């Protein structure tokens, strides 16, 4: 991949800030982004496509009379377009209303080193290499069992870099790589089709196990062929990372965002120092987790990434802050401003949401369950109440655990409850930590969850 140089991106960001100040901005910030990816796609059992996407752009935030204006462009090689974009940001700010709570852009602070996020081997990958990884994954899946049908999947190599500069002295450049392979499968037997099962492996360095992904996606689908109905009751659940990622993103993580707390739309408001989950739960937001999928040197405003203790043995310790919400409380940003590339202004999001693992192996956790369910994929987590944490979702499928062993699968099992009650009922955590999007977590064993069967 031919990528933009660090100096090129930084000097563009700095020159934009200078132009904005000259044209009348009280403060200015420029964010230069480059994303490149090559992908190979699997559809209906075979590799059918390849793509290459190059996306570069510039986002400019200016402040005029305490009002914030933002403009972006994806034409960054032409000086006049860049200047026009500055003017559009200024005109947006001038059209807007002053914000009495605005207390300045982020200031420069020392950066820590973000480890294991950039691997030149990923940059050197060619389409041929990705196709070979895809073949390996497909072969692994189909040799498990003839009833397995790989529905879709793919292999992708991504390069991301960004540079930021602002009028408070921030300047930073960061680059990273990601490689990912994934496979969705169903198993078919006669007229019976299982729900879609899914596995993936994503890493920052070129170290993925396509063979495992293929085998595991196939194993899950085959194991979903044998079904059994489930009755309505309160029961034990093992939540795997798939279920946790979905559920926590729309409930707990929302409640931890300082913006939601300050605006009275978080059930955790006013609860710092109080017990909010069971004692065995400790959670960090760790923007520097080595090799984490969201690990970076700095956030979308140039504030340093850091490791923030959120919940310590069940006690709420902190919230996720960006520069704006932190200044409102005379605090420092926790480095949780993120951006959707150059297209958006920064907003609060967790980086790597790290639930500290426990001692139990996966097998031990399962063996502790006399009668319960293990949950992989959820439907409808996004329809949870983001303020109260109440959820009413469907597990498709859920596998039954009987006398310490996973048995048959049950379709369309509804789970209902409140995330804070569920986290209060966590009786054990696995040692099987895994990265999934922003989540780094083990399996959780949760007691007494309402399950509604057919």
């Amino acid at each position, binding site marked *: 991949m031919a990528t933009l140089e660090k100096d090129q991106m930084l000097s563009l960001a700095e020159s934009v800030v200078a132009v904005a100040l000259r044209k009348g901005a009280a403060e200015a910030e420029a964010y230069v982004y480059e994303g490149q990816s090559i992908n190979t796609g699997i559809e209906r059992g075979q590799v059918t496509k390849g793509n290459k996407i190059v996306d570069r752009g510039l986002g400019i935030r200016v402040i005029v009379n305490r009002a914030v204006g933002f403009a972006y*462009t994806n*034409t960054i090689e032409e000086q006049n377009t860049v200047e026009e974009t500055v003017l559009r940001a200024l005109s947006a700010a001038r059209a807007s209303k002053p*914000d009495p709570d605005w207390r300045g852009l982020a200031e420069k602070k020392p950066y820590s080193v973000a480890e294991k996020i950039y691997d030149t081997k990923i940059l050197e990958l060619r389409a041929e290499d990705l196709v070979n990884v895809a073949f390996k994954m497909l072969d692994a899946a189909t040799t498990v069992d003839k009833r397995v049908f790989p529905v879709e999947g793919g292999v992708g190599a991504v390069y991301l870099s960004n540079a930021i500069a602002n009028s408070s002295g921030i300047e930073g450049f960061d680059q990273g790589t990601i490689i990912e392979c994934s496979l969705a499968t169903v198993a078919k037997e006669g007229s019976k089709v299982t729900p879609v099962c899914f596995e993936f492996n994503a890493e920052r360095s070129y170290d993925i196990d396509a063979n495992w992904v293929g085998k595991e996606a196939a194993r899950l689908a085959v194991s979903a062929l044998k079904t059994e109905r489930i009755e309505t009751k309160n029961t034990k659940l093992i939540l795997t990372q798939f279920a946790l990622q979905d559920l926590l993103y729309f409930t707990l993580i929302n409640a931890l965002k300082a913006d939601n707390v300050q605006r009275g*739309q978080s059930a955790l408001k006013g609860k710092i120092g109080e017990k909010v989950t069971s004692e065995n739960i400790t959670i960090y937001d760790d923007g520097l987790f080595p090799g984490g999928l969201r690990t970076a040197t700095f956030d979308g405003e140039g504030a340093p990434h850091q490791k923030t203790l959120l919940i310590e043995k069940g006690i709420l310790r902190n919230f996720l802050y960006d520069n704006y919400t932190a200044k409102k409380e005379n605090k420092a940003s926790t480095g949780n401003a993120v951006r959707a590339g150059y297209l958006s202004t920064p907003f609060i999001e967790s980086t790597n949401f790290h639930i500290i693992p426990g001692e139990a192996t996966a097998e031990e956790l399962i063996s502790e369950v006399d009668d319960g369910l293990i949950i992989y994929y959820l439907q409808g987590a996004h329809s949870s109440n983001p303020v109260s944490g109440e959820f009413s979702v469907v597990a498709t499928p859920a596998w039954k655990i009987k006398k310490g062993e996973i048995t048959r699968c049950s*379709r369309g099992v509804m789970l209902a409850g409140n995330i804070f009650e569920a986290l209060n009922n966590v009786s054990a955590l696995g040692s099987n930590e895994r990265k999934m999007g922003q989540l780094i977590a083990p399996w959780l064993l949760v007691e007494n969850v*309402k399950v509604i069967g057919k």
Partner: protein
Amino acid sequence: MEEILSKLNEIATQKFGAEYAEARAQKLNKAMLTLKEGRVEAAKQGIEKGVALRVLVNGAWGFASVGSFNAESLMSAMADACRMAKIASKRLKTRIKLADTKTVVDHVQLKPKKDPAEVQMEEKIKTTLTVNKAIIEYDQRIKSCTIDYMDLTGTSCFINSEGTCIKQDKLYVWARITAAAMLNGVFTFSREEIGSTEGYELFDNMLETISEKVAKRAVEQLSAKQPKGGKFPVVLGPNVVGVFVHEAFGHLAEADLALAGGVLADNLGKKIGSDLVTFYDDGTVNGAFGSYKYDDEGVPAQKTLLIKDGVVTGLMHNRETAQKFNAEPTGNARAEDFRVEPIIRMRNTYMAPRDYTFEELLEDIAFGYYFKSFRGGQANLDGTFQVGIQEAYEIINGELGAAVRNASISGSTLETLFKVDAVGKDFELAPGRCGKGQTAFVCDGGPHIRIREVLVGGNT
């Protein structure tokens, strides 16, 4: 522009051995606002341009996207696309072919009453601020209100190697309004969206009613009770019917998902629902959020009948799946922008009305639920659906009772459609955004309906 794009397609077919090539150049302008409790968080304006290139070589797809109109960059991107396809085709058993479609040369120009691109940012801020304040002041129990506003205008120029050349204006206006209320540790959350392809005038007309709806619901839900978990008869409002049609059936009727092991592939021509069930996916509803004239493969949008009186009559196709099913392309291939390839997406998906009044739907229910408005929904290829509800009421002896919060419904589509035993005579379409890797603007809707029995997720 047309000349460069044609030249690119020519190079793909003549120099790189592509059997098909297309180029889609787009220029998009966006204006966006985020408001929170009477504060403008940021006023945003963006311009983006780029070209999507897609080719078939040896029966495999190659795709490249580049954020530039520079001829040299485009030539190199086209070479990349062809190379990606060639490499992907290495072990291909079934070559991809495209169904024939008429070549089209057209220029689609929109003439909105009020072009959002012509409306000053000041005016957009003034309008949204008024609504934001009205919601906050509606009741002191309302703690927060967020409004996200977006308008998108631009042009798309599509040219393929078969001679189709379509220039098409784009226009979308959209807003989402959310409010949260709190009382004695009970938190509620309420959401509405508005969206149109017609023009900015939508806002002047709709904002006031929408904001009152959002505020009223957030407050009313504070005293709502938890639903019972289990099977109950339910009446669904048009808004919930819409998302049910979209999630529980619509995705299964997307031909790519049907081919990927979805349950509908084996049910074409078969009866999968009661006689009262008729569904359409319609790209031609004037001004609706999911409407357009041509899709991103140059195929005209149409009104597609999916189920008639309970029998599956068709699927939503692109040219590739139409060829596989030996069907006509239905104009459902849509790409969010030039960064991505077109995939099969819904447009305006709805259930056709029949003859019941709302009171008649309720009158035979001793105990059940009226689900009026949804919060979200999701489906699985095996036909399991989930719809989360943000506004619900008990039905007791044929009358509406207490408000109910945080319910959801679930079931198997193929079983549930048979349980639709009464369909109302009213009709409403509501705008939304659908995620399938990319975001598409759509509408969902229908009349009120009654389902004899459905699984309700509840906490008590």
